[in-house]
């Protein structure tokens, strides 16, 4: 009897409490808050966002989401509108009101974004879509939001998906770690240890350490032990992280170098043409990507994201055509005269730069990442594999596969190898050496164009793009061993990984200097590069 009465009293209390928390803000208040959003008064706007977030009204999410996306419009009467399905504006509060007077967009700045992010996330915790819940929980775990903690705790209790539950516990740890409840504190430390989240390291070290007077910061042994364990797990993770991430960064830089140098490995490595215009072929590849993007934007905006796929053959064909034209008109008269070739191709590179400047302007042009290449996946906290970098690694493997196949498995490749090894003999058995030269140079240039497509996704596209990469390209080819594709591969990845292992310790500037010094020493010791040509071709050099 007694317990029952107590329970019912408790239940009433709880109900009353819940009711007081979740009483929907009166619609009027909400509308007033929506009006305040465009007031321009920062304090007023902050209060309005707070009120809307706490209202748990179903329009609140729509309102805040539109605001965060910069798509919320407010008319002169203060009625908010957001673009609905199909992009036409409709009033956020329902009904069929038409905008009165001019529409304005409430200003969203970083301060507001910092406020909006947890607010939006808290509204999304109960969403059916696990992806949405996960990203909401992760957003909440970024900063400490004490007043949202009960809400998160309730959501975590209901959550069945282990990943989301972990993320929610991490969000709770933000509050619980600083609280006074020992059990919650231990739970928070457990979650931190499991996640090995480095952002707590400073606080954990404070917990395990002593203050200035030699007193322990944390009197409780259990908490201190748990904090120590969490620090250890964070340190182990950090070690792994630095090894794995540096290797990945090295591979990614190596694949960029490979894409830049592969074309040169053919024109310079196999054909011995010192092609100073190689960088400009990269640049033209990147500009072709831009042109294809513009074409898609104008003629098929619905499929805009696929421009990059279309740009690959387009860039190959465009640069191959330019390369072949160069070979026919200039370079074939200069075979065997390296210095003249060097000067002539340098001149060509200047002409190409200026031509592009005249056509596209001196300004850089904007090549956007397609949506499937923006962002990345977080393989562990603190280490994000970005899609664009992954794509470049995959793409460079595909390109080297293509070049290898072409050289080793096709009749043209056989001819190319024959001509580069012994021109007279090849001519003697009926190989049209002149025509093979044209094709080889064309393919080398085309591959450079493919490199340009990749570069357009990583950096900016401007007339001087090629200048940044030509020195690196020569470095890779010379280091790897002139005339050997495997050498170019080894040179590119070797330089990439070495650079990235040096960079954290020595800094970007010193790292580059050390690499250059290393190459000079290496080439002096071993002028033929990593992979040496053997036999007559080597002697003929």
């Amino acid at each position, binding site marked *: 009897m007694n317990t029952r009465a107590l329970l019912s009293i408790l239940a009433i209390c709880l109900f009353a409490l819940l009711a007081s928390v979740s009483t929907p803000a009166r619609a009027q208040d909400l509308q007033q808050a929506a009006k305040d959003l465009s007031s321009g008064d920062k304090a007023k706007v902050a209060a309005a966002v707070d009120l809307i977030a706490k209202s748990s009204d179903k329009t609140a999410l729509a309102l805040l989401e539109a605001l965060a996306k910069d798509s919320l419009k407010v008319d002169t009467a203060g009625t908010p509108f957001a673009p609905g399905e199909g992009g036409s504006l409709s009033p956020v509060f329902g009904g069929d009101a038409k905008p009165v007077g001019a529409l304005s967009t409430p200003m969203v700045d970083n301060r507001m974004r910092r406020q909006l992010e947890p607010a939006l996330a808290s509204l999304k915790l109960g969403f059916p879509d696990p992806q949405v819940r996960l990203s909401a929980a992760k957003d909440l775990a970024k900063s400490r939001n004490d007043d949202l903690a009960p809400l998160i705790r309730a959501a975590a209790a209901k959550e069945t998906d282990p990943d989301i539950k972990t993320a929610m516990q991490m969000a709770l740890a933000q509050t619980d770690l600083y609280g006074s409840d020992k059990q919650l504190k231990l739970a928070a430390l457990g979650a931190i240890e499991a996640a090995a989240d480095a952002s707590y390291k400073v606080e954990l070290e404070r917990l395990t350490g002593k203050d200035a007077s030699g007193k322990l910061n944390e009197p409780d042994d259990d908490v201190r032990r748990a904090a120590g364990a969490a620090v250890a797990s964070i340190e182990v993770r950090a070690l792994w992280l630095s090894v794995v991430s540096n290797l990945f960064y090295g591979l990614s830089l190596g694949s960029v170098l490979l894409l830049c140098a592969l074309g040169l490995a053919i024109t310079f490595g196999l054909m011995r043409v010192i092609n100073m215009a190689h960088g400009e072929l990269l640049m033209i590849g990147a500009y072709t990507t831009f042109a294809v993007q513009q074409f898609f934007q104008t003629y098929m905006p619905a499929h805009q994201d696929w421009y990059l796929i279309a740009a690959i053959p387009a860039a190959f064909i465009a640069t191959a055509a330019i390369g072949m034209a160069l070979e026919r008109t200039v370079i074939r008269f200069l075979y065997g005269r390296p210095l003249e070739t*060097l000067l002539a191709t340098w001149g060509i590179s200047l002409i190409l730069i200026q031509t592009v400047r005249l056509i596209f302007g001196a300004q850089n042009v904007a090549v956007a990442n397609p949506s499937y290449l*923006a962002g990345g996946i977080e393989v562990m906290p*603190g280490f994000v594999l*970005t899609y664009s970098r992954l794509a470049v690694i995959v793409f460079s493997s595909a390109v080297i596969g293509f070049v290898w196949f072409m050289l080793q498995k096709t009749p043209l490749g056989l001819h190319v190898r024959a001509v580069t090894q012994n021109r007279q003999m090849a001519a003697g058995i009926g190989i049209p050496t002149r025509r093979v030269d044209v094709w080889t140079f064309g393919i080398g240039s085309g591959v450079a164009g493919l490199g340009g497509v990749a570069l357009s996704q990583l950096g900016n596209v401007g007339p*001087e793009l090629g200048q940044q990469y030509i020195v690196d390209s020569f470095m890779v080819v010379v280091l790897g061993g002139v005339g050997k594709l495997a050498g170019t591969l080894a040179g590119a990845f070797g330089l990439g990984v070495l650079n990235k292992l040096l960079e954290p310790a020595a800094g970007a500037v010193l790292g580059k200097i050390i690499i250059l010094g290393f190459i000079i020493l290496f080439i002096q010791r071993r002028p033929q590069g990593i992979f040496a040509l053997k036999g007559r071709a080597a002697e003929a050099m």
Partner: protein
Amino acid sequence: MKSRYELVLAGLLASVGCKGPGETAPAATSAAPAASAVAAAPAATPKASDTGPIKVGILHSLSGTMAISETSLKDVALMTIDQINAAGGVKGRKLEPVVVDPASNWPLFAEKARELLQKEGVAVTFGCWTSVSRKSVLPVFEELNGLLFYPVQYEGEESSYNVFYTGAAPNQQAIPAVEYLMSKEGGAAKKWVLLGTDYVYPRTTNKILRYFLKQKGVAEADIMEEYTPFGHADYQTIVANVKKFAAGTPTAVVSTINGDSNVPFYKELANQGLKASDIPVVAFSVGEEELRGIDTKPLVGHLAAWNYFMSIENPENKKFIADWKAYVKAKNLPDGDKRVTNDPMEATYVGIKMWAQAVEQAGTTDVNAVRQAVGGQTVKAPSGFTLTMDGKNHHLHKPVYIAEIKGDGQFQVVWKTEGPIRAMPWSPFVPESAKKVADWSFPWVCGNCTEGKFKTDTATAGL
């Protein structure tokens, strides 16, 4: 040009079997701060006739790497000169612009400056962008007693008798930006990443900022300073390090990354999931012109600090933009209606107007007379304030704006000063600079010294 040289070398090395050390000259950018002596003004400037047009030099790179930025300054200078001529010129005399192209080649800047002063006999020169180019022409202007208006924000630690600085000194750009990021509104940053391209301007600015941060109680361990070579395109490691460094503490990045490296940097930031609301980046070299031609999606919410933004609303700016658009259209300049206005363009515009007013007041184009008259000139500027030229330190009083980048390549102002603030060319935060004084009035007559050149006893003796 230098990279070309290296490149030929690389090619030669490759072709000739690669013997011999690959000697590459390091960029000689560490010129010492100009010690500008007053010098008994040599009257080397040829006297222009007092009735013909007044020659005005424009010294901006129209080719090479800096052409992207500097071409607009040349255009806006010509526009302003056109406007002055349309209104009847200066003292009834037309201005005649003499445009030369130093081609982004620093030594050539000095040669062209000499050519302008000695051969053309220009009354004044508007020009230079990079600090290296300014350091290169400085001795020429001082030797020949020329007059230069320099329109770009720079690292300070300089004041020349022959130069008027219409761009910002560090206390008019960098310091307020850092103060903003420290404030609650700006995110209350506790840790700082100073990121720059490796040359004079970022190194000096970061030196000043480091002293400043330390005075504000930021510990040495909470400052990370990183430099990258020119044209650096691979920011994976640096962004990952920033992330590691920032873990758990509000952090801000101060970027003096130059030119083309900005795009890969911001792209990497966005791809690794660092949003402006997590780690804001404030840049001192990213303006409207630099945002034109890049995909601004990854940049939204990041900050820039300048003394003028195209998006500022006031009648002067409206007119300035309308004039510029009309001029671009009339002259059929490349990129047409996509052209924007930016901070150095505004500074050029203000500089030319001030000089013209000073000539009116002095009644002559003589450098010594005009120099006296420029100090104290005021111009109602597009930045929304009436700006005054400081006759003592030759720097312009300027308002400071901090703004966030928007998706359309424009900026929205989130913070600004009450009004124009006075430049402090010698930073009070750097111990060895704090003692120095830039004051070209008596009894100092000095841009770089710790005691006045004109002694009081001689002054009283003269009375």
